[in-house]
């Protein structure tokens, strides 16, 4: 037998080719020169634009920039960071390390409840922070934007910085960017529904349960996607597609609800 054997680990592939027995490397090697180094920074910039660009575009395109609501967004981002910390502590305390990879319903339920801490954080950001005189319409947008931006930075910037600059090309960071887009839309929808639930006093009676149902759906969306990914074993492109589609659907529904509540009764 040859003196050195290749380690056998299966890797993910996106074009349907059979799993290769080669070990997957995530880090870029030292680049001695040539076209490799510049190209990969290019890819990093591309993915960074995809991940963070929409937030900037949203801020500059909508009247948010005219009314200078950046302060609200920054405060919302700070609240998000605090919420993330609380969630982390709760997860560490309450969840057990899984021995096997199976789906444990109690653990998943626990994770859903911890996910509601997010909703509590949004509530805090929408209601408790003292905002300057900005309309409700702009308030939820600013809060949602700051929240989603902080989420992207916290969860996606570090992997992007470390991974996308490597020599090896993967679709992973592009999918991550698309996820960030979906997340922005979903956060805005949730913020809209949140402002409806907590800031608007007179709502049409018939719409109230729908509002709460949609808010519940949005709040549990992360659990749904993780369930799809792990238990149903959907591949990443499918999951991202589902996220994009559902975010657009929920955005549309929230928009309808919001405009329905705007109309004087």
């Amino acid at each position, binding site marked *: 037998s040859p003196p050195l054997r290749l380690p056998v680990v299966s890797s993910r592939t996106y074009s349907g080719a059979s799993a*290769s027995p080669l070990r997957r*490397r995530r880090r870029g*090697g030292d680049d001695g020169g040539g076209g490799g180094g510049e190209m990969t920074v290019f890819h990093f910039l*591309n993915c960074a634009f995809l991940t963070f660009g929409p937030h900037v575009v949203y801020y500059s*395109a909508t009247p948010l920039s005219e009314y200078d609501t950046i302060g609200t967004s920054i405060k919302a981002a700070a609240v998000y960071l605090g919420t993330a910390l609380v969630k982390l502590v709760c997860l560490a305390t309450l969840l057990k390390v899984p021995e096997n990879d199976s789906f444990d319903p109690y653990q998943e339920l626990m994770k859903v409840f911890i996910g509601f801490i997010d909703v509590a954080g949004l509530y805090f950001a929408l209601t408790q922070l003292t905002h300057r005189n900005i309309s409700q319409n702009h308030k939820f947008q600013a809060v949602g934007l700051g929240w989603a931006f902080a989420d992207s930075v916290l969860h996606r910037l570090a992997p992007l910085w470390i991974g996308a600059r490597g*020599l*090896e*090309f993967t679709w992973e960071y592009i999918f991550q960017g698309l996820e960030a887009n979906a997340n922005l839309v979903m956060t805005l929808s949730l913020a809209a529904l949140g402002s409806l639930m907590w800031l608007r006093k007179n709502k049409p009676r018939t719409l109230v349960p729908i509002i709460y149902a949609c808010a519940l759906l949005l709040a549990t969306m992360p659990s749904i996607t993780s369930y799809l990914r792990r238990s149903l074993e959907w591949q990443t492109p499918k999951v991202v597609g589902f996220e994009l589609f559902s975010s657009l659907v929920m955005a549309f529904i929230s928009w309808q609800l919001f405009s329905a509540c705007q109309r004087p009764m």
Partner: protein
Amino acid sequence: MSPSGEVLASVSSALAVALVLLACVELGDAAAAVGVYRLIQYDLAGAPLGSRAAALNHHAAALPLPAGADLSRSALVAPLLDLPLSFLREYLADKKHLGGLLILLPTNHTDDKGQVKGVLTELERLLVHEQVPYPVYFAFHDDSFDNLLADIRKIAASGQPASATTGGYKLVVPSAEPRKVSSPTISNIQGWLPGLKGEGDTEQLPTIAIVANYDTFGAAPALSVGSDSNGSGVVALLEIARLFSRLYSNPKTRGKYNILFGLTSGGPYNYNGTSKWLRSFDQRVRESIDYAICLNSVGSWSNDLWMHVSKPPENPYIKQIFEEFSDVSKEIGVSVSIKHKKINVSNPRVAWEHEQFSRFRVTALTLSEMSSPPEFLESTGGLHDTRESTDVESVIRTVRLVSESLARHIYGLKGRNIDVFAENSSLALNHHYIRSWLDLLSRTPRVAPFMQKNDPFIEALRKELSQHTADVHVQNDALDGMFTFYDATKATLNVYQVASVTFDLLFLLVLGSYLIVLFCFLVITTRGVDDLINIFRRPPSRKLKGA
């Protein structure tokens, strides 16, 4: 509603472009890391030889090459049997530059026609004696490399050679500049089995020496396990030592000869180590050596063994020794033939180990399966010399031949029909011992300059010899100054799948248009179409002012 319809349209068009992109950049496997072994790099009397570079960072190319391919910026990946040696020879002769060369060694062990062995020998001969200015690596061929080669050929077939703008695979070996191995040492291990001195004997007992060199040299020093050359000789020596130590442990069966066992190093370099070892002896000890038997490559013969001598066969000592060997060989059912090669003292080339003994005027012979002397740096444990090319039976036959002849010489049993090392006796040859040592030697690369003084393998040999013999001593010396070796013999090759610059530009285009569409959509929905137009229209008053 138009805004949401617009959203859907832009999203669907983006998805369509993404599908097109997917079709352009065909993704196969992700990156991989493979262990690779570098071609040896050394200087011989100042002349640089072997692969002179270690770091590799180029796009991969495969045979058949597309027309007009610029190989100086690509690393060629070729399975051993697909690589035409004439192509390589032409490249080396014309001093054409290659980015790098990765040769894939076959792993299936069926080599009926000896084709692989022949190709490997020729390839080694070519590469070891040439100066190759680019890195040359060896790796073992398996399925993952098959996929890699197929992918490279597919990309090449689309008409574009591999380079920075068309994507493909990149081979990267991160390696520092190879440094010289400082003061390479050769370690000779010796052990004595002292004979029985009678009360009246005042003179020194005569000595018989059994010697084998244990180090190797090959094109890929990290793969030079030298199973046959000279692992088989080392194993035979150890077994002979074991048998005679049993005989000598009892004073009643101790012979009137000392037996000296020597495991020498520096064999491929004109038996440099043997010469230094002999020089280190006291002259009286050297003069007491009756004769020396050197073992070289005794692991793959079936019927014919050669006895190489430098003294003419008519010499009475040589004649006697040869007769002893012939008698035993007839009984075993093999044949031993004698071959005479005169030493040319002015020629520094030493082809057989016994020639070093002869230069010190000690009678010596070499037992080998090779009928003609090997060339310089050949048959010293190259790429083809692995465990599969050796078999235990040949070593057993050799041990039986040597130990029986030796026993008859020592105990004066000539003419008597006695089998000293008979089967099922306490002195029977131990097949398991031979097999396990042969397996160990076939897993250990043993190129002398890369073995330190305290190398665990040298220590293992010393320990084993001290189990069977007394007075075990390791003599360390410096390798002949004519040779300089460079390190970096093993490395890890990273294979990356890279996307082309065109892909990145295309992606940037798509991304830019997506963001612009998003921007326009948001402006229209929140502020109205007029605002959008106002952003892009320049106020007409400015133009008049500037004029």
